[in-house]
């Protein structure tokens, strides 16, 4: 209960007019960078950083973390409305969010996303509040073999859930791995797969790939199939927003499970992206409505959003207490901490009580501010769906182009993005799944690094993955998830089905 006392003290610090104002500004700017693909929270935070040098550290971190919350929420908007995920962690939100919006229910989709995201964030902060001191220790148990096991678990829970032809899934996954390997390899320092293009040494950016595959690819599908967005219901949008929020408790179990997955992946090194994919994959397997996933199922929005925000929030804990940033944005904030004269590490919680608990209190408040603000914007964003296609199409092309360019001021990225656009169209048309490719781009090289680091440590023996209880459990869990569909199918075949539902 010592922590609760400290938290109350923290609220005393965070609840000043000045700080609430900073939260508002931070959240608004965050929503803006989150909505614009290619900009993202890391850019926004690094731009604000110089402004914070004259501030008190606690005010500075409140401003920056509020921007982070805003960007996390904003990132889901374009995923849902235009199938363009602005951040890696909102890719999984497109799977059901976009179909629902296209179906004429953008307000419902946005409100579901924001509501579950807020729940996830809350779960993350509660976890930090109650167990700040010892949860950080959990992360210390993770060496290279454990890292590899966590990535393996994320893949296992997501890949292998049917729908697409298995060979096409495999090709898609393998292409993702190959793209992740482009550039300089961490373990050997050598240059790989640049195909003779010098600039490729920087690697293939996730944002570039996703903007082409999802944004441009979907645009081509839409125009070819003459897809028209269904007329948006003439209902009062506000009522729809409230009705959706009031209906969220129906997904209570999914919310809790997803938040738990998110917290776990945020503290262990998995991160928000792996968390959202994993949560989606598990939800699809466990849900009684699993056949509906991918077609606008609310649970398919709830699962990745709650997990993403729970992970994004709890990822700040390893940053503060260990000095390892759980996300790109956390890395920038960590640079900020050093500039303000604070050293992230185990002593921060002891030496800088005001700062740490002020920040934690501001996480509660900042998320409340963020969710209120984004909910207010739902009708505005939903109205974007009414803009005629012939206007929105060039706007999306321009946004994707500028977004791809601004990742690293490179024209090559723009060309790549267009190439990915064509590939995305072909893949979608021919039922190659895109999600495994994206997941592999994001965590493929990390998984490879962890595997090779483990091999260095064990001098080439695979036994290292079964040497300690933690890593063995994770690997076995992953293997079970990977084999589960096959096992179920076999059991299903052997036993007569009690009820045959279409």
């Amino acid at each position, binding site marked *: 209960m010592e922590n609760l006392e400290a938290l109350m003290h923290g609220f005393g610090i965070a609840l000043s007019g000045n700080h609430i104002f900073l939260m508002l500004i931070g959240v608004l700017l965050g929503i803006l*960078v989150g909505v*614009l693909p290619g*900009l993202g929270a890391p*850019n*926004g935070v690094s*731009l604000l950083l110089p402004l914070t040098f004259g501030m008190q550290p606690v005010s500075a971190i409140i401003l920056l973390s509020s921007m982070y919350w805003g960007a996390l929420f904003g990132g889901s908007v374009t995923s849902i409305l235009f199938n363009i995920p602005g951040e890696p962690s909102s890719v999984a939100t497109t799977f059901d969010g976009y179909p629902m919006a296209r179906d004429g229910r953008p307000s419902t989709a946005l409100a579901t996303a924001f509501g579950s995201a807020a729940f996830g964030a809350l779960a993350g902060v509660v976890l930090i509040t109650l167990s700040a001191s010892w949860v950080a220790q959990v992360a210390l148990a993770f060496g290279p073999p454990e890292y590899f096991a966590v990535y393996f678990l994320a893949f296992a829970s997501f890949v292998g859930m049917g729908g697409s*032809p298995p*060979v*096409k899934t*495999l*090709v898609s996954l*393998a*292409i993702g*791995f*190959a793209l992740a*390997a482009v550039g300089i*390899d961490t*373990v*050997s320092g*050598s240059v*790989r*797969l*640049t*195909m003779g293009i010098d600039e490729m040494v920087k690697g293939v950016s996730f944002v570039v790939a996703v903007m082409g595959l999802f944004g*441009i690819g979907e*645009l*081509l599908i839409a*125009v*070819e*199939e*003459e897809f028209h967005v269904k007329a948006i219901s003439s209902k009062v949008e506000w009522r729809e927003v409230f009705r959706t929020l009031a209906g969220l408790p129906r997904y209570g179990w999914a919310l809790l499970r997803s938040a738990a997955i998110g917290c776990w992946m945020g503290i262990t090194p998995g991160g928000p992206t792996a968390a959202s994919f994993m949560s989606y994959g598990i939800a699809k397997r466990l849900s009684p409505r699993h056949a509906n996933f991918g077609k606008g199922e609310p649970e398919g929005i709830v699962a990745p959003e709650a997990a993403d925000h729970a992970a994004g929030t709890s990822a700040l804990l390893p940053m503060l207490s260990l000095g390892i940033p759980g996300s790109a944005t956390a890395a920038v904030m960590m640079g900020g901490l050093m500039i303000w004269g604070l050293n992230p590490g185990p002593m921060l919680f002891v030496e800088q009580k005001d700062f740490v608990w002020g920040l934690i209190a501001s996480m509660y408040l900042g998320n409340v501010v963020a969710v209120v603000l984004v909910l207010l914007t739902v009708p505005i964003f939903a109205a974007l769906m009414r803009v*005629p296609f*012939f*206007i929105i*199409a*060039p*706007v999306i*092309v*321009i946004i994707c*182009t*500028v977004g791809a*360019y*601004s990742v690293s*001021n490179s*024209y090559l990225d*723009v*060309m790549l993005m*267009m190439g990915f656009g064509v*590939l995305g169209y*072909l*893949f979608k*048309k*021919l039922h*190659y799944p895109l999600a495994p490719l994206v997941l592999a781009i994001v965590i493929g090289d990390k998984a*490879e690094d962890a*595997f*090779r680091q483990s*091999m*260095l440590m064990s001098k*080439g023996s695979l036994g290292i993955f079964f040497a300690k209880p933690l890593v063995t459990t994770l690997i076995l869990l992953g293997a079970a998830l990977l084999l589960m569909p096959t096992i179920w199918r076999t059991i299903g075949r052997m036993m007569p089905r009690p009820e045959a539902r279409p």
Partner: protein
Amino acid sequence: MVSGRSLEAATALITGVFGAAVVVSSLDNGIGWSAAGVESGTFPFIVGLVILAGSVFNLVQGWLHARVVVLGPAELRRLAILFVPAAIFVGVIPLIGMYPASAFYVFGALAWHKRGSLLLAAVAAIGAAVALYLIFELTFQVSLPRGALGTLLGF
């Protein structure tokens, strides 16, 4: 007209060529085990082989099974109307820069669909360029490409 067969074949060829390139390129990095652990080409090599084998499978599979026409003239026309201007837009960026390219693109798209007057289209076009400038250049300090034209004008 494009049949499912040729579309499948084309896609399998693209992925197959990519897979082959990955295999060849990874041989440069060395595969197998060395004093420095697993060599850096090993993993891409395996992945490349998977892509290659999968592509061959998909090629055969597609050739045998997908005979129906999937893209008729109407579909191809609609695709071209979207893709050709977009490709031109991207293509001229190095020449005239992002701002004029976006303005022309928006203007062209609105004028083509003949809804609203040309004046409106022109206003929207300039508005798009200005919005880009305000958001990216001023607010977020991302300088968008000026193109050869920009260099010429010293912008």
